[in-house]
């Protein structure tokens, strides 16, 4: 995330045109791209952009899933059935298609990608969240808390939430990893709008055209992306 505040060079400045396609040498450790931009600075900022946009998208997914769960667990049976039917449609539905569907009537920009990812990963999060919620709702300690007259808020705060929190983190990890992957995929396809945008998928799409001349320029963004995904799996509470 440091990439937002400081990078070795300006990631957008075409300041090193005389060193275009150069390999990894000091001070340009990842090389210089065809437009004379420092590759390390772009990858650094790209990682920050990827993580922050994916984080917002994953939070959006959890918020939407929580809202749908609240609707589904409500009193209306029709509403519950409706929510389950609509969510089940999303299982196996590719995010790329949903992203394209949103592009039909929304601007081609990074914020649209957040919407696409937030909505498309809801089925994945909702189903797991629902199982966890039902498990906690029917747990002996929750029943006991209700039996001694605990209010809904008290039951939620002191019985359900402490037991739900660690498992919620596991769901978030999965959703966050999927969001990183999907964000970079959609921007790789050019759906993020500005092709100069420093995001790992967009950088890969941009550098792909130069892979004959300087293959290392396409290795670094992908390696960093895979490293981020791997690290996401290792996150602990």
């Amino acid at each position, binding site marked *: 995330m440091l990439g937002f505040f400081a990078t070795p060079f300006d990631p957008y400045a075409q300041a090193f045109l005389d060193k275009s396609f150069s390999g990894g040498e000091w001070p340009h450790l990842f090389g210089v791209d065809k437009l004379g931009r420092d590759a390390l600075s772009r990858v650094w900022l790209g990682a920050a952009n990827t993580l922050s946009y994916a984080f917002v998208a994953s939070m959006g997914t959890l918020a939407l899933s929580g809202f749908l769960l609240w609707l589904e667990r409500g009193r209306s049976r029709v509403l519950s059935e409706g929510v389950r039917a609509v969510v089940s449609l999303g299982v196996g539905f590719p995010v*790329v298609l949903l992203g394209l569907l949103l592009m*039909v009537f929304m601007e081609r920009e990074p914020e649209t990608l957040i919407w696409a990812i937030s909505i498309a990963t809801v089925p994945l999060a909702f189903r797991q969240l629902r199982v966890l919620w039902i498990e906690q709702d029917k747990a002996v300690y929750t029943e006991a808390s209700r039996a001694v007259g605990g209010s809904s808020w008290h039951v939620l705060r002191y019985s359900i939430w402490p037991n739900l929190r660690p498992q919620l983190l596991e769901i978030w990890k999965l959703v966050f990893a999927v969001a990183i992957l999907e964000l970079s995929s959609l921007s790789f396809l050019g759906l993020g709008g500005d092709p100069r945008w420093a995001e790992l998928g967009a950088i890969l799409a941009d550098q*792909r055209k130069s892979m004959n001349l300087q293959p290392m320029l396409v290795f670094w963004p992908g390696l960093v992306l895979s490293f981020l995904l791997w690290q996401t799996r290792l996150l602990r509470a």
Partner: protein
Amino acid sequence: MLGFIGRKVAYLGFVYLLASVAIFAAMKLIPEDPLVARYGKHVPLEKIEAERERLGLDRSLGGQFWEFHIRFWSGDWENSLRTGRPAAEDLRKYLPATIELSGLAMLFGGGAGIAVAMYSRVRGNEFSKKAAMSLGGMGLIVPIFWIGIVMLVIFGVWLEWFPMGGRFGMLEAPPKAVTGLYLVDCLLSGSWGKLAEALYYLLLPSCCLAVYPMAGVTAMLYARLKEPEVDALYVSLRSKGYGSLRIVFGHLLRVASAPVVTVLGTTFGGLLGGAFLTETVFSWPGIGRYMVSSIIERDLFVAQYLLLMLILLIFCVAFFSDVVAKALDPRGKEGGDER
């Protein structure tokens, strides 16, 4: 079984209705006039109005929705802005390329996933277990488009073993189109040289795309083979003195076939999404690249029908895989293994 199929067909109908309403509503929510978006701002107003009348866009919402379905099923999808040809004709050209790519990837990925999971079960050593778990998690760690690029750099740029993109040699005539699937067309016409050429172009992209089904099948099958009932079956067969090959091909594959088919069917959507990326990396002339460019160029009339068709395709594949899995599952048959 008939009741099961009936329920699934009704579900498909529901999916079609919901998807068509979503796409139709999306078209209506566009802030700009879709005809102006299609033809540009410099086209005379009279022409825009004439087009509006021809396409039925001056009718009521209900009339327009009806017209949308009529045009979808009759294949009257307008001309593509990108190619200038009728979109239905483009579909016949590009869709088989994507199906061929996805089909071969499914075959490679499914086969590799089954082999790795079975090997890890039969061997049972640390290395095989780690291999199965790593492959199962690979889909969530390594982006498929990066795998494709790395493959191109290694096998295309450095070793020069494979072409850098395309579906067939630029200087050679492709096989005579019967199905549009080059491999099948070559087999039908008996052109073995062209079959080798088609495979030469298809191998790298399909191996890249195979990562998705391979990860899904490995993860699912590895977990399934570890279940207590399957484990008990394996131990009892071993105690009878059966060899590894006999256990795998005679018993475990039967137990595993239904869930594998289900996984392949439900991951078809993801595979198609992956195909969009693979097509971009390998310059593969498939429907994914065609659709992405249609949307980027605001060719919305073509894009709406393509989206609906792809959504239907995804759910049709899931439908058929469910039916096949149901038929293959020994627990669903009277007198099956579970008795």
